[in-house]
């Protein structure tokens, strides 16, 4: 047990945040469900970071620093921390458009994520993607996808590539609850089962697809959705980060060991509107419903209360932790604000990975390609293709 928890602890504290509670080497182990005190503080700090990051984004949106669609994950942080932190750095993760905290959990820095939300050149997608399209294959984060369910076959393909090469990574493919009504989901599950792809499909079941309650648009319970394909279904309480973490830690290793695709119904709840244009409770859920979840189902409060009850966290420690992550988010926003807009001359860069020697790729008379003006040469380098999801670091 100590060995396992040590390993886990080192993974948990391996994030980009500057470490919340690393002062004690001789910290006792097996404190809560085998998590060390440092590991517990690490998970709490992770979730707090995600929360503060998005609150900062919310603020920035309100003053026009962030545009377009912006979907907050607030309330669902237990899943980002619990499902992603146990993974290896080279395990690919892909998700839909509510992607900020997953991206940070996988290793995109708050600075790079915030700069992307601001549409700046230092953003993790160079300002070309925005809130819905955060990418960094070097840390195994494969996006950030805007069409409901569209990322699911891509997740299957990431699993296919792992199997094709005989590698041992595991792909975690997130989706919202509404996505299971897309054909893309059904087709991907079927193929994953046929070929036993190493993919964990995770539904972030926050009960509503935009404003439509899942129960209104589904003929079955969520757990029944994978049974037709022989894919085991699991339900996990996404508001309990410890349960979620343990579940994914175990499941990732089982899939790595050949258990085949898995389907996880992660129960959670969104504390904000669907996007910035949707008020917190909207017309489709009551204020009381939202408030009761905020009071009773906040993954951060749940862990905080548990730690305090076990005398593993003092108010002062919590405040220090919060101050630290707030400073990280403040810094991220300042960094983003100071980052330049993308150079206009790069408009045509990265449309194509290969600018062919002959012929014209752009037909508007502006981006001429070879011999032209703005084509931008063979770009991108090895990031996408050579390394694939992952790169070579291990958490």
């Amino acid at each position, binding site marked *: 047990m100590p060995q396992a928890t040590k390993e886990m602890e080192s993974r948990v504290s391996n994030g980009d945040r500057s470490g919340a509670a690393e002062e004690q080497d001789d910290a006792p182990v097996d404190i809560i469900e085998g998590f060390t005190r440092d590991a517990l503080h690490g998970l709490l700090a992770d979730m707090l970071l995600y929360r503060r990051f998005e609150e900062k984004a919310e603020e920035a949106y309100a003053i026009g620093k962030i545009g377009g669609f912006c979907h907050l994950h607030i309330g669902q942080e237990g899943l980002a921390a619990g499902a992603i932190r146990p993974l290896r750095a080279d395990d690919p993760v892909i998700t839909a458009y509510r992607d900020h905290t997953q991206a940070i959990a996988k290793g995109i820095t708050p600075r790079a994520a915030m700069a992307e939300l601001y549409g700046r050149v230092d953003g993790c997608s160079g300002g070309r993607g925005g809130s819905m399209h955060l990418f960094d294959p070097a840390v195994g984060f494969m996006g950030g996808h805007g069409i409901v369910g569209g990322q699911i076959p891509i997740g299957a393909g*990431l699993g296919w590539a792992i199997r094709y090469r005989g590698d041992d990574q595991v792909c975690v493919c997130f989706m919202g609850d509404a996505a299971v009504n897309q054909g893309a989901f059904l087709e991907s599950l079927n193929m994953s089962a046929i070929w036993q792809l190493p993919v964990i499909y995770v539904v972030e079941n926050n009960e509503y697809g935009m404003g439509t309650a899942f129960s209104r648009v589904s003929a079955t319970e969520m757990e029944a959705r994978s049974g037709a394909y022989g894919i085991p279904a699991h339900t996990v309480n996404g508001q309990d980060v410890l349960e979620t973490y343990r579940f994914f830690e175990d499941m990732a290793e089982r899939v790595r060991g050949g258990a085949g695709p898995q389907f996880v119904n992660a129960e959670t709840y969104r504390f904000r509107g669907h996007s910035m244009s949707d008020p917190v409770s909207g017309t489709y859920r009551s204020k009381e419903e939202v408030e009761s979840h905020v009071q009773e189902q906040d993954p951060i409060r749940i862990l905080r209360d548990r730690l305090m009850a076990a005398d593993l966290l003092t108010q002062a420690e919590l405040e220090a932790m919060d101050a630290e992550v707030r400073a990280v988010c403040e810094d991220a926003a300042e960094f983003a604000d100071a980052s330049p807009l993308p150079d206009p001359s790069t408009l045509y860069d990265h449309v194509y990975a290969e600018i062919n020697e002959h012929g*014209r790729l752009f037909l508007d008379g502006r981006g001429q390609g070879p011999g032209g003006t703005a084509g931008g040469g063979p770009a991108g380098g090895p990031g*996408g293709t050579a390394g694939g999801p992952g790169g070579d670091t291990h958490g």
Partner: protein
Amino acid sequence: MAELTYRDALNAAMCQEMDRDDSVFLMGEEVAEYDGAYKVSRGMLARYGDRRVVDSPISELGFAGLCVGAATAGLRPICEFMTFNFSFLALDQVINNAAKMFYMSNGQISVPIVFRGPTGAALQLSAQHSQACETYYVHAPGVKLVTPATPADAKGLLAAAIRDDDPVAVMEGELLYNVRGEVPDEEYVIPLGVADLKRSGGDVSIITHGKMVHVALQAATMLARDGIEADVLDLRSIRPLDVDAILETVARTNRAVYLEEGWPFAGVGAQIVALIQEEAFDDLDAPVMRVTQADVPMPYAKNLEQLAKPGARGVVEACRRVL
């Protein structure tokens, strides 16, 4: 040089590339045990095994997306659509994922994938199985498109498409699969973006692509009987587009007709006409005409189908109008 069918030339290109690169694999409906719905992949399952030659379920959206995902991880999938008509089910994966991933990710994730299969009409397959799909694919920046007309072009262009680092659609023709022609035995790659003057005339330019190259050549023969010599320019590659070759033939003949299998509205020809008037207006002695499929869904009845399809006679007429 060996004489091969267009079908076997495509097969030769896939084998050539699979021999040199283990990251290339073929996936699609009936590509493995059935040897391909049009036998393009004949023998490949026996040669490469079911790791690399893979029968998919009838799930165009699903397997196209899976192939896109595999490409984002650095593999080089050849995603076969039994026909491009069926690929409409997969267009979200083609347009929203394959075409845009490199841009959205700021050049971090490329998608080196080939989508291939037949486009256009065959014989009496009626509306849902008889349409030219080129426009749907080239409309989106991020996708490339080639349309080989001959066996040699089929081998060289498919090989180039597989080696290209971007999504490339290779649109073939059901009625071309049995066409025979000389094909280089050795490793053969035709760079994308190079048109081919299939016939040199000088009086009028018939510009076209894919299966229609043969119709254009037929029309040119008919015109020659009356002493009119036509250039037949086969674009081969729609995106990238060999603009120089287009401008060159127009400069020589001062008259142009675009022939295509698709519908006229926002078709490939519309783009070419726009390009010519923008960049070669002073070379023109007449408006550029288009010969396309009739602007109706393809009917089944033989006589109506004949009326709907672009044919050599229509091309001859169009050429006479610009002469």
